[in-house]
């Protein structure tokens, strides 16, 4: 059904048949090339936003195109077209193959590639999963919940976004794989004011489903209450400490630590090129005993999940770190081939106009045995950070940051005053060796992450249990 939907959306409007594709493949991927693919994509997306209590603006966008990538050894030639037709494909293919001094092969027949047995999400169009009036109602509900939560709320901005992506990957040897990917997201940002002081809070979530995700269990209302709660906490926040101290990270979104400290450094491209601080360290201890981290593209409905990656490889759960030892990297096809291994289903791209590369899906740490209360009680003095903005890493030196947006001081085993947001900085290859307690409360984030690499953004997920780290640098302003 997905196959026929993808053909109907991507191939039929341009009158493209399997025979036509076979001749394009033959003309593009002849002798002298080492693979590549044609990536067909149709994206329709919408965004609705509410401000001052009114839904005043909304947008709808369509993108359609095909990207053709020709690989020869370590070289990649790439061209794309926003017209999906055989002549446009032949032209793009001719351009892309200019890197290879290759001969042509009459034609390469098209055949189905491997598919996932049970889909991780339904191919329904999220944009049509709710009518326009109900989308507006949903935003107004979120706004009303936030305003009712506290009289100090002065401003509420809410957004609702939906994307439907239809993807068809045709590999150089004729394997055809398709996927239809829904993705929805809601966000809320509130401003609170008290005695001339203003603070903000934000929350949100989403996943690969329709908009019913937000009405189930009133998630929209829960995001609104959460944003207000954070903003009110920040109204009381004092200056954050500066210096190296014990840090307890809450469960869920603080897993952005793993994404930055470990995740990027374990992507296959940086390791093949030897530019990652983790290059050549498979089998070595890079984390404390008890720490196991996986990248898992197979979690039903999650923001970072994919039935197949953008190279047509069925996604999997990949063990990155097992009981503290480095076990594996995340690979796409190109880097896997050049490293003598197999793709782990991590080949992703922002769109047909971008080249794929190894990227994370949902990256998280498996739970340990300690109760979160027990972990906090064990710290005499430190920082308890429960919410974060984004992070960034220098792959080569291994230094990474992530910025707390809700944090508290821990004094004598008790969580005391809230402190202002501060950036935490550490060294990827050793930060996890300083983990001294692992919570039993694994949580995944609510579905808000977007990872940027070389200018390409892709949706991802992160997660972790409560963690105690004995020594991270906290970038506040108050001498500790």
């Amino acid at each position, binding site marked *: 059904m997905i196959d026929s939907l993808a053909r109907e959306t991507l191939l039929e409007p341009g009158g493209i048949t399997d025979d036509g594709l076979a001749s394009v493949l033959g003309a593009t991927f002849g002798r002298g090339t080492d693979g590549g693919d044609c990536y067909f994509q149709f994206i329709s997306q919408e965004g609705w936003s509410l401000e001052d209590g009114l839904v005043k603006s909304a947008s709808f*966008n369509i993108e359609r195109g095909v990207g053709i990538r020709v690989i020869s050894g370590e070289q990649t030639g790439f061209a794309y077209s926003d017209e999906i037709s055989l002549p446009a494909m032949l032209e793009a293919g001719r351009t892309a193959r200019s890197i290879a001094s290759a001969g042509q092969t009459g034609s390469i027949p098209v055949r189905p590639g491997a598919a996932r047995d049970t889909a991780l999400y339904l191919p329904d169009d999220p944009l049509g999963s709710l009518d326009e009036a109900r989308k507006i109602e949903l935003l107004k509900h979120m706004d009303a919940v936030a305003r009712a939560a506290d009289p100090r709320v002065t401003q509420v901005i809410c957004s609702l976004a939906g994307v439907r992506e239809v993807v068809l990957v045709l590999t150089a040897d004729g394997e055809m794989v398709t996927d239809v990917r829904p993705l929805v997201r809601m966000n809320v940002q509130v401003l609170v004011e008290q005695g001339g002081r203003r603070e903000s809070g934000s929350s949100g979530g989403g996943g690969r489903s329709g908009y019913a995700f937000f009405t189930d269990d009133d998630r929209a209302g829960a995001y609104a209450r959460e944003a207000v709660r954070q903003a009110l906490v920040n109204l009381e926040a004092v200056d954050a400490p500066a210096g190296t101290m014990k840090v307890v990270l809450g469960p869920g979104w603080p897993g952005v630590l793993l994404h930055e400290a470990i995740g990027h450094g374990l992507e296959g491209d940086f390791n093949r090129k030897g530019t990652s601080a983790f290059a050549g360290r498979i089998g070595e201890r890079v984390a404390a005993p008890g720490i196991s981290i996986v990248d898992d593209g197979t979690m039903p409905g999650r923001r970072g999940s994919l039935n197949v990656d953008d190279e047509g490889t069925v996604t999997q759960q990949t063990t990155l770190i097992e009981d503290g030892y480095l076990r594996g990297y995340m690979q796409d096809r190109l880097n896997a081939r050049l490293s003598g291994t197999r793709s782990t289903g991590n080949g992703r791209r922002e769109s047909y106009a971008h*080249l794929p590369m190894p990227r994370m899906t949902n990256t998280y740490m498996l739970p340990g045995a300690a109760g979160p209360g027990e972990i906090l009680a064990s710290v005499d003095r430190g920082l308890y950070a429960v919410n974060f903005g984004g992070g960034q890493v220098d792959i080569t030196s291994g*230094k990474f940051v992530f910025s707390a947006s809700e944090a508290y001081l821990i004094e004598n085993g008790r969580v005391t005053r809230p402190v202002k947001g501060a950036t935490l900085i550490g060294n990827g290859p050793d930060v996890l060796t300083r983990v001294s307690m692992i919570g039993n409360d694994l949580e995944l984030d609510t579905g808000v992450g977007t990872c940027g690499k070389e200018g390409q953004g892709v949706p991802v997920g992160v997660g972790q249990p409560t963690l105690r780290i004995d020594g991270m*640098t906290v*970038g*506040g302003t108050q001498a500790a």
Partner: protein
Amino acid sequence: MILDHARSCGASAAQAAVSHNVGLAVTVRRGEVETLEYERDQQMGLVAYFGQSKGAASTTDFSPEALRQTAEAACRIARYTEPDPYAGLPDPDEQARDWPDLQLDHPWDCPAGRGIDLAREVETAGFAVDPRVDNSEGASVSTRRAMSVLGDTHGFMGGYRSTRHSISCALVARGDGGMQRDYAYGTSRDPSRLPAGEAIGREAAERALRRLGARKLGTRQCPVLFVPEMARSLIGNFTRAISGGAQYRKSSFLLDAAGREVFPRWMRIFEEPLLPGALGSAPFDGEGVRTRPRDLVTAGVLQDYILDSYAARRLGLRTTGNAGGARNVSVQPHPGEKGLQALLSDMGTGLLVTEMIGQGVNLVTGDYSRGAAGFWVENGEIAYPVEEITIAGNLRDVFRGIAAVGNDVDIRGNIRTGSILVEAMTVAGD
């Protein structure tokens, strides 16, 4: 045509923007071609108004059918959105009628083969600097030409072409303390103004090498000197804080700050949108409104905000021709004759910041905390490289605490500033 579609769907007013880009990018790594990318993008965006209600839609498919559907989508959305008294096209009197040629279009006849040769030269020059430079993330050459056209139902119609060409290189050096990566680049609208490829390669190598052996610092308060590339991001936080959206949403630490002293008395920041050949230049803004040179800060006092017509109406002000943002924001060097070396001497002992990572800026409160790397400076001389530290403060204090702006102005972006010396910030490390 697309505007006619919108009209025929019942729109009372509409604005359409069309862009078309063609480009080529090559990357060479360790002497071999790694990627050769041909770019070709087009997009049409439409905003339709039904009275005070608004809808927007865009498409990359330019078939008549797709354009018609896009117009219908914008109009359909506008029927659902609620009226906003401030919505609408700009006042036609504010729009540009004619405009100078800003010399933004300088196509580069750079076929793939020539780009590859140039990228090889860049990388080779970098590797030749020192045997410790033993790895590369590649050298890239890219060229891009764009055409953009804007029209609205008030009768505005304008368009222009522009080009942007870049050479960049990222190299990895290996030493006792591990590996360090750094990069260098040149970018310009005019290829004849790009720096020599070899110079970029050498600079990338030298920058990676000088970071080897970096250590942490102890936590302290000290003066901080930002090199121009980093100073740019400080000024970027200022322009975001005085943007119309941040003002009318009351989400700025510089709320209602016009007329107030935000920087030291000697400081001047101005916008030069009509500077010929500059990267931020444009003859009219994203709504067709005339762009004009003006002061944002005079004698340390904030003069005005950065407004499009919507934000202006909300604030009861007039548009400043900044739909799409500020253009060529320039910081006047002061005391005027000092480059980086002189500012290092002025600082004496403190931190020279050459790289920052992470977000860590809260525009609502001005709280600032970012990851940093650079050099510890003693008696005006670089002592040793430092990393894994943060710098923090509140931007209100940081801005007022600026002690000097260097004349080493970096013009490779939309914000043009020299090095900036700040009297004191908190550095967190060991």
